[in-house]
């Protein structure tokens, strides 16, 4: 059926402008979600990621009904929800996950209520939920790239604070890092990462772009920098491979991308499981001495 050479097979989709846009968009999304997702995984915030992805839904619907940019709609919704979660979880009686549950279910229901009042209910709902990667316009692409630059730049500038609130919140407090402020900043970055992925994979599968590549990277990386690079790399590769599968085998693109990421996860997980006994055995043979070898250290300089 495809008697093209491998090079032809690879380059064919790139002849089409909408596919070029799709490839570029998914690479940006893979990169941004991979990096932000690494922190989401380390902080155990998968539920927050899922909640956010759903909570931006009414913003998209309202923007759609008003005929304005869904990016803006999603951003406003994310800001409102993030602030709502922040305020509700200040209450000592409510855990943060409870506050998130209340906000996200309510917001999602509002989105469905709004869109169900329009005529093309089911078609529009599906395109919002599953994304429409082949419909990425040049403007969408530029906007996605701009959001990506903002997210990565802010992460780079505030990397120490974000790393501190991820790794050791007690130390963060000791060093004068304002936890609430940086938690909110991170939620905004998370919301932005989700927004970049809405059009490409849709708001149901965006969680996979955040969690799966980062979880895969976590299985093999022992330090944060390699984890970030691997997570972003797996996100980008899953996006590209998923798009090829979608192009040649006519599978829904969002699903194909997520399935590739999931497959990579399971392959790496299998290897990691197999490596573990070996590692443990090696670890035992070069056991870390409990006491510093030279016994007493030199006095502090």
């Amino acid at each position, binding site marked *: 059926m495809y008697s093209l050479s491998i090079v032809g097979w690879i380059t064919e989709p790139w002849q089409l402008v909408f596919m070029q846009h799709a490839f570029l968009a998914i690479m940006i999304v893979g990169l941004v979600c991979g990096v932000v997702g690494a922190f989401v995984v380390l902080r155990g915030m998968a539920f927050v990621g899922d909640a956010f992805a759903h909570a931006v839904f009414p913003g998209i619907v309202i923007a759609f009904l008003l005929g304005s940019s869904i990016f803006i709609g999603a951003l406003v919704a994310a800001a409102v929800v993030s602030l709502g979660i922040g305020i509700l979880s200040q209450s000592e009686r409510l855990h943060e996950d409870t506050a998130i549950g209340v906000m996200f279910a309510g917001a999602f229901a509002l989105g469905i209520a709004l869109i169900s009042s329009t005529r093309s209910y089911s078609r529009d709902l599906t395109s919002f939920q599953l994304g429409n990667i082949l419909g990425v316009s040049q403007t969408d692409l530029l906007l996605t790239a701009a959001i990506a630059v903002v997210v990565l730049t802010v992460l780079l*500038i505030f990397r120490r604070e974000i790393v501190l609130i991820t*790794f*050791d919140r*007690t130390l963060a407090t000791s060093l*004068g890092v304002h936890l609430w402020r940086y938690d909110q900043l991170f939620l905004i970055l998370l919301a932005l990462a989700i927004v970049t992925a809405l059009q490409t994979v849709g708001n149901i599968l965006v969680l996979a772009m955040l969690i799966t590549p980062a979880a895969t990277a976590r299985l093999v990386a*022992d330090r944060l920098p390699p984890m970030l690079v691997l997570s972003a790399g797996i996100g980008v590769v899953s996006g590209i491979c998923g798009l090829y599968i979608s192009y040649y085998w006519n599978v829904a693109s969002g699903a194909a991308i997520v399935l590739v990421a999931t497959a990579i996860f399971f392959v790496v997980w299998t290897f990691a499981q197999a490596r573990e006994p070996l590692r443990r055995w090696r670890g035992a043979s070069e056991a870390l001495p409990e006491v*510093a070898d*030279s*016994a007493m*250290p030199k006095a502090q300089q």
Partner: protein
Amino acid sequence: MSTGDLVALTDISASYDDRVALDHVSLTLRAGEVVSFVGPNGAGKSTLLKIIAGHVRPDRGTITFDRSLGSHPRQEINYVPQRDKLDWSLPASVLDLVLMGAYRETSRWRPLRRESSNDALRALDVVGMRHHADTQIGRLSGGQQQRVILARALIRPAAIYLLDEPFTGVDAPTEALFEQVIHSLREDGKCVVMATHNLDCARDVSDRVLVLNRRTVALGPPAEALTPVTIAVAFGDISHLHIHGEDAHVHV
């Protein structure tokens, strides 16, 4: 506050929900001294450290910092939490973890590893962990974890060091090492405050001991504060103690 006093805690009370954690505790901390808080679980030792560090707000009482600590006195405090407060499964090397202690000391525009690696390695040297700088933190034993979080506090110069249960789960050589580090901090004119269950260590290293059970049971030099009577009062169990009628200073 008199000369040499760094922090004065006056009539501090604190509670978690309905449970009283501290009840009218007063204490002064001075430069160049080691003060230990001893008492049973739930006696308020950690809470008192956290109040000094600014992590917990007391319900009542005042904390006064000496002017020598500058306009942001809490920046002059290094708080070393209990090691189980950290998630040791996170992806970081020993060096990464120690460098986090230097986050405030270097410009955010410069790579931390280039700026502070030497300081971090020196701090690791002090606790005998330099050769494990590249080890993944998840592979450390309990005693090694304790050494690493102490190194992380040593990388950042401060006037006051607050150590929460530094001797828990460490072996005898590590204990001796920590005592040595605490001594050298005191010689450098630092104030070291620690919460501990280990009465022997408290006796060995401290200039003063605060025996605590939500209220002050005794406060003074180890020989005066740590008597069988005060220990029995604080721990509420005298069955294992042999009281020989020492002249204890008990305030209950």
